[in-house]
């Protein structure tokens, strides 16, 4: 009898203890624990690493012989990049910014094909570390490429580049005195967001007086297109397609001095231009072939490539979206 009673109470006792334990555990869920020991160790490591990093950065600031000294008259390069929202936009802008961060005195003018600035681009630019201006202008519907149109059907980015030029002209006229004079020596370059640029290219274009030109790789159906130079002057253009255009160049193959842009207030890109004539529509009024300045070792080196990025396949994503199971749209891609 005594035995049976003992077991029964033991089990009841266990049951009560387990119940209390469970309640305690449930209450502990999500509460902070007391981790001061681990805190201290990690704190020390982090503090030490941060100190190292800061020390290295100080050291670098003091003695970097390869960095060109920030002379007040190092001409600024204004890079105008038209961009539009699509899946690979953030990736393209990311790797572009990683190149631009290496170029001193560069000002990135990003012009979105949109009726208002997007949060993606705004947040990206502010975190990128590049000096930038964010603009936007919407391409009118009839000039826009429709789904399924080949990429060469309509010239793209004309309105956006013109908006960049407009901003430059406005800013230049508002900048007076020494800064205004310095601004006149600046160079304007139109950089699409999917091309690839080497760092040397920007140093080549910095000395542009009117319009400078150089070869572009992987464009025009060829390994590269380039101006042909004889005795230091451009005599013709080596291109596989319609060499009789006034300027058979790619957008990435020339840079214009800001002074030239300012003294020709009507120079702009013609959005209705025929295929391949967009660059000519801008350059025609600005300069003649003889006045072009050849760069990149008399146009014998390829320092920029007209790469294009594939459109990522979204078959499975589309299928999931139809079922309402698409990926979290809050995760920015």
């Amino acid at each position, binding site marked *: 009898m005594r035995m049976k009673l003992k*077991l029964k109470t033991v089990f009841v006792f266990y049951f009560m203890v387990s119940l209390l334990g469970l309640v305690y555990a449930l209450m502990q869920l999500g509460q902070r624990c007391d981790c001061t020991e681990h805190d201290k160790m990690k704190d020390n490591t982090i503090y030490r690493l941060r100190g190292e*990093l800061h020390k290295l950065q100080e050291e670098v600031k003091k003695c970097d012989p390869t960095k060109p000294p920030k002379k007040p008259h190092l001409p600024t390069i204004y890079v105008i990049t038209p961009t539009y929202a699509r899946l690979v936009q953030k990736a393209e802008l990311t790797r572009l910014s990683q190149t631009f961060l290496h170029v*001193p005195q560069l000002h990135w003018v990003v012009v979105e094909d949109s009726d208002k600035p997007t949060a993606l681009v705004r947040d990206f630019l502010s975190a990128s570390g590049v000096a930038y201006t964010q603009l936007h202008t919407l391409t009118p519907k009839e000039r826009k490429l429709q789904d399924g149109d080949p990429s060469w059907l309509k010239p793209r980015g004309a309105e956006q580049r013109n908006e960049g030029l407009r901003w430059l002209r406005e800013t230049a006229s508002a900048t007076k005195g020494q800064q205004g004079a310095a601004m006149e020596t600046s160079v304007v370059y139109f950089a699409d967001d999917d091309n690839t640029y080497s760092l040397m290219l920007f140093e080549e274009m910095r000395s542009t007086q009117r319009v400078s030109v150089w070869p572009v*790789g992987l464009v*025009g159906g*060829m*390994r590269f297109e380039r101006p042909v130079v004889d005795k230091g002057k451009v005599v013709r253009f080596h291109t596989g397609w319609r060499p009789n255009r006034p300027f058979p160049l790619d957008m990435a193959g020339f840079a214009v001095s800001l002074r030239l842009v300012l003294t020709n207030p009507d120079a702009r890109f013609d959005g209705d231009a025929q295929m391949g004539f967009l660059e000519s529509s801008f350059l025609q009024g600005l300069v003649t072939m003889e006045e072009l300045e050849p760069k990149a070792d008399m146009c014998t080196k390829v320092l920029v490539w007209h790469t*294009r990025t594939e459109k*990522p396949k979204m078959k499975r994503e589309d299928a999931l979206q139809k079922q309402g199971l698409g990926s979290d749209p809050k995760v920015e*891609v």
Partner: protein
Amino acid sequence: MPKRRDILAIVLIVLPWTLLITVWHQNAIAPLLAIRKDDGAGGRRMAGTAGDSKEYCSPDKDIVEVVRTEYVYTRPPPWSDVLPTIHVITPTYSRPVQKAELTRLANTFLHVANLHWILVEDSQRRTPLVARLLRETGLNYTHLNVETPRNYKLRGDARDPRIPRGTMQRNLALRWLRETFSPNSSQPGIVYFADDDNTYSLELFEEMRSTRKVSVWPVAFVGGLRYESPKVNAAGKVYGWKTVFDPHRPFAIDMAGFAINLRLILFKPQAYFKLRGVKGGYQESSLLRELVTLNDLEPKAANCTKILVWHTRTEKPVLVNESKKGFTDPNVEI
């Protein structure tokens, strides 16, 4: 008999308590570590990238230190004795866009401190194009090469791959690492497989620097989705894979979605990517399953909620105007 029942009762009383005490003792330590790591990863943002603020934010202690440093262009960042080296293994092969891809990749890597680029060419011998490019970047690099045998190369139809592209090259790099570093040396290192056409954010490299065994994160534009990512539970452990294509693979992750601690590579010298008989999508698993279990994976990128790497692919340029003889000067390198 009363005596036996007594004993039975005592055993029944004591046994659960001993079990409870041993299990509780074990569990008390592990969850503490896991929870603390999560707090650390979430609250901290690694600096060293384009000159913003560095913050260290401990939710308990209310220390917020914001240091704004102006970005200083340097090629590349000075070597630190403290930071673990990131060994980036990139297989590459000759094609028109190769120099462009490697150029923009180099522009990215020039921002990352303590980066060692192991570039492995799929070629009979090291090409002057790549050698020159590597030299001119100023990066810390190792230039290797191994040619995938012709009949094993990926042919036109991707439906019949013999050896997945880049396998032999990645394996050569792993072998080089094992021949160069000894398991007993204390040089910390992280191994990352970076293909030459992807896009990497600078934050990614700082995330992977703290890898203890194998760390994982989401990758955009793979598997026909906006992104694929590991599934992470509330305790910060990976328990599955958010993919549509064969989510039951041992490691349903892209090559760009994980990094391995060098020590693990050195301690398991038999672990390589399987060369033949690997089903599509199982390449990564063929290596990872020899190194680590699902439970050991460390989720990064805010518990796998941020995209820090994109699986971009570059279009093949249509060189229609070159014709058979070649229209452009072959001496001009592109």
